[in-house]
């Protein structure tokens, strides 16, 4: 994720420029001349967001000094394969447009080396979540085309026997083969996972618990102190959950519910003091670990509607940015947060200034429905430009289409499996 402070007095013109990239407020034209996102084949999602320091007023309530922070531009994307390759491709295909955007940032001049500048402003991601690790944009598009063709082709008659189901399956297989030979359908085989990527993943899998083990004795010894520190803070930290301004709310809502998916960007200050700073850092390492090794195929705990999410520290870990791409309405998303994963939200966000009161790090907090809803809306920031490579498709669609393809290619299915497969269509 790229983060760069704006040059003084350039914000209005940047906002105007970003607005030209959209078809409707907030939704990017995939072929806009500035950054033609659709030309980057491996890009799932991208967004450009301006982040100011308005919420830092909350620090006044804590009685700690409030550093004035410049408004920053953030540019981020979710892509297949190594990020640096996609960055290079962006520079190659949208260099001019990107330069015109970044020219609004501090220190960017006419002869700045774009790629080097972008890399220099890249912030490490503290934790990231990918709904289905390894599912590429190309695969998504091909499988969606396959689903559409099969759904339109299949004869919707009752299937009375296993033999009939298998015959139907075979018929559809040969139909797809014909279509593929004629070039009307493409189903690219899965590329093998790069060796180095697997090694890195394995190393991460082992290393984090190992380090954890090393620190365990210290943690155990310190636990009474840590619990004391946590509980005293939890019972006294101020809650700051006023109602967001109607105008601000309206600016968020015009961007929403245009596609089946929506975007969410939020920012907040980490509670001052080393305790919270370390706690949130450790918890994000753990969450990142869980996302990389446990929640890799279709769900983040009970939530099955998040495509991508990430947490990033900025300003020397005094602020955190959270972004996500999710299916359904904002109300529904918040409903999931409260009713399905309040404990998970509390783990991280209760280290943010003003979060509704938690108990023992996971209880309360986001379960305090109205405080939480006001809090998250107040911390949400309008996303100026948002791109999705496959409008109209929800995660449920992606997973179903993937199953359709797997079933199509599987000639060893039982009768029951074949029937279940037919029902997917």
């Amino acid at each position, binding site marked *: 994720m790229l983060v760069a402070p704006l040059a003084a007095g350039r914000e209005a013109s940047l906002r105007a420029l970003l607005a030209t990239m959209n078809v409707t407020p907030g939704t990017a034209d995939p072929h806009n001349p500035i950054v033609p996102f659709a030309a980057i084949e491996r890009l799932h999602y991208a967004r450009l967001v301006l982040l100011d320091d308005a919420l830092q007023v909350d620090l006044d309530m804590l009685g700690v000094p409030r550093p004035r922070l410049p408004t920053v531009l953030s540019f981020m994307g979710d892509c297949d394969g190594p990020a640096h390759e996609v960055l290079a491709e962006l520079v190659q295909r949208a260099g001019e447009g990107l330069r015109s955007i970044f020219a609004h940032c501090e220190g960017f001049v006419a002869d700045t080396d774009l790629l080097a500048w972008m890399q220099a402003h890249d912030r490490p991601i503290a934790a990231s979540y990918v709904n289905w690790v390894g599912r590429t944009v190309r695969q998504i598009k091909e499988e969606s085309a396959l689903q559409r063709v099969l759904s339109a082709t*299949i004869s*919707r*008659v*009752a*299937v*009375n026997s296993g033999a009939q*189901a298998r015959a*139907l399956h075979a018929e559809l297989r040969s139909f797809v083969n014909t279509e593929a030979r004629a070039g009307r359908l493409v189903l690219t085989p899965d590329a093998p996972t790069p060796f180095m990527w697997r090694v890195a993943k394995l190393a991460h899998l082992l290393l984090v618990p190992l380090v954890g083990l090393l620190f365990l004795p210290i943690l155990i010894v310190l636990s009474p102190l840590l619990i004391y520190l946590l509980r005293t803070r939890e019972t006294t930290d101020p809650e700051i959950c006023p*109602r967001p301004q*109607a105008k601000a*709310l*309206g600016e968020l*809502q*015009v961007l*929403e*519910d*245009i*596609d*089946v998916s929506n975007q969410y960007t939020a920012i907040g200050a980490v509670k001052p003091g080393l305790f919270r700073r370390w706690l949130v850092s450790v918890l994000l390492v753990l969450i990142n670990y869980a996302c990389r090794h*446990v*929640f890799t195929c*279709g*769900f*983040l*705990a*009970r*939530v*099955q509607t998040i495509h991508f999410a990430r947490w990033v520290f900025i300003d020397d870990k005094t602020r955190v940015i959270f972004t996500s791409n999710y*299916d*359904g*309405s904002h*109300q*529904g998303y918040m*409903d*999931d947060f*409260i*009713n*399905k994963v309040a404990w998970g939200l509390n783990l991280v966000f209760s280290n943010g200034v003003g979060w509704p009161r938690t108990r023992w790090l996971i209880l309360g907090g986001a*379960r*305090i*429905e*109205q405080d939480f809803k006001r809090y998250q809306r107040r911390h949400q920031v309008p996303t100026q430009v948002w791109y999705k490579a496959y*409008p*109209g498709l*929800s995660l*449920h*669609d992606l997973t*179903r289409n993937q199953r359709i393809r797997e079933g199509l290619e599987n000639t060893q299915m039982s009768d029951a499996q074949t*029937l279940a497969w*037919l*029902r997917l*269509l």
Partner: protein
Amino acid sequence: MSAGTVELDDIQGLLRFGYKHQTQASFLLLQIKDREAARAWLASVPVTSAVTAVPSPDTALQLALSREGLQALGVADDIVNAFSPEFVSGLGSDASQSRRLGDVGASAPERWQWGAGQKVPHVLVMLYAQPGRLAAFQQAIEAQCANGFDTLVSLATSEMDGIEPFGFVDGISQPKLDWERTRAVRDQEQLAYSNLSCLGEYLLGYPNEYGGYTDRPLLDPQRDPQALLPRAEDLPAQADLGRNGSYLVLRQLRQDVPGFWQFVNAQAGGDAAARERLAAAMVGRTRQGEPVVASTQDINAFDYQADPHGMRCPLGAHVRRANPRNADLPSGEPGLVSWLKRTLGLDAQAREQDRVASTRFHRMLRRGRAYGAPVSIDRALSGAASSFDTGLHFICLGANLARQFEFVQSAWLASTRFDGLRNESDPLLGTREPAVDGSPTNEFSLPQPEGPAQRLSGLPQFVTVLGGAYFFLPGIRALRYLASARSQGSP
């Protein structure tokens, strides 16, 4: 006031009764033309309370105010703005909201007969009367109102014996309110669907399903020196203007009865039995009210757990969308391990059943009434669409507009992805406008045990929104307070 009490005499009767004996009803939408006269009338108008009356009263009057109405009365801005944001911004004035609720195309607010632009009602007066009593009652009330108000619209209703215009028994399913306050006031996971619902889901000032108190205007007691208002249960130092009140949604929904039956008939190939089956599948109940998912003694005691794929009751059926009857967590083996696995999302089978939000946070009390002349199926099948003007004055009550009405309308009924469906929205209510990516929304799928789902396409729009507004249905003391000069003062 101790926790646990419920002031039935301060609550408007509509929260407790559907006024079924009062088969006649009329809804007056008024605009204030003379503030003082309007306030004088509101200060004394007899409003029927929720106390049980024996025998059932001949007539009943209920009263609600819109945000514009509060402002026209001169209620102080800070009080008005302490109501919920949805109430403050109202219905039909914000394009984002219209998009969310599916008020687009033929149902767009620009086309409404009332409720948008200059035609926003200030006060809703709901008149209920036993057979034959309405005309005189309405005349008397209209005469009383004449000085203070202009009548924007007078919505007549018709007696259809509890059957809505498409021909289905309506008003069967309602949440059961916990009037005795037996539910513990705390935030606790519910592992089974229950029809018993916390008072605070419908009445402001009482604990809701999260064990919390929904936001509402709480006033400094100095603004209520005569203690006209109840004190807040959770913050006894504050006067609670919301207590015993509720939000009311009114939407005039025109139903194209010929369009509905002609479409269903064509799909059924003209076969009467198949036609009934299909219509029942779209609603989720037969015309007589039996749930299609299971035949039960009590036609409201069922859920969809045994029919996860919608083979018996399609996932997209109206009543299944409107109330999926699920619990907070998908069911599974007893024991802590299974609970933990389901809570962490590690149980694949449970995940399959976990696409729909927990129902208990999204209930509402429905109090709508049909209007227009009933159309029999035979006439519907032969008639032209435009020759009938009939439909539903949809009314629902709830303490949280965003989480109840708006959520159900947008995330469940209008959604094209409810429970993993695609290309379809509510079979009765959908606007059928294509999605932005061009994909259709005018289909309806009936999953089949043997083979691929049966898919109907080309559903026309059967229901059009003709008007709508959000109101606050105050407690009776709060109504008097709002009518008094006290509510006008700044803090």
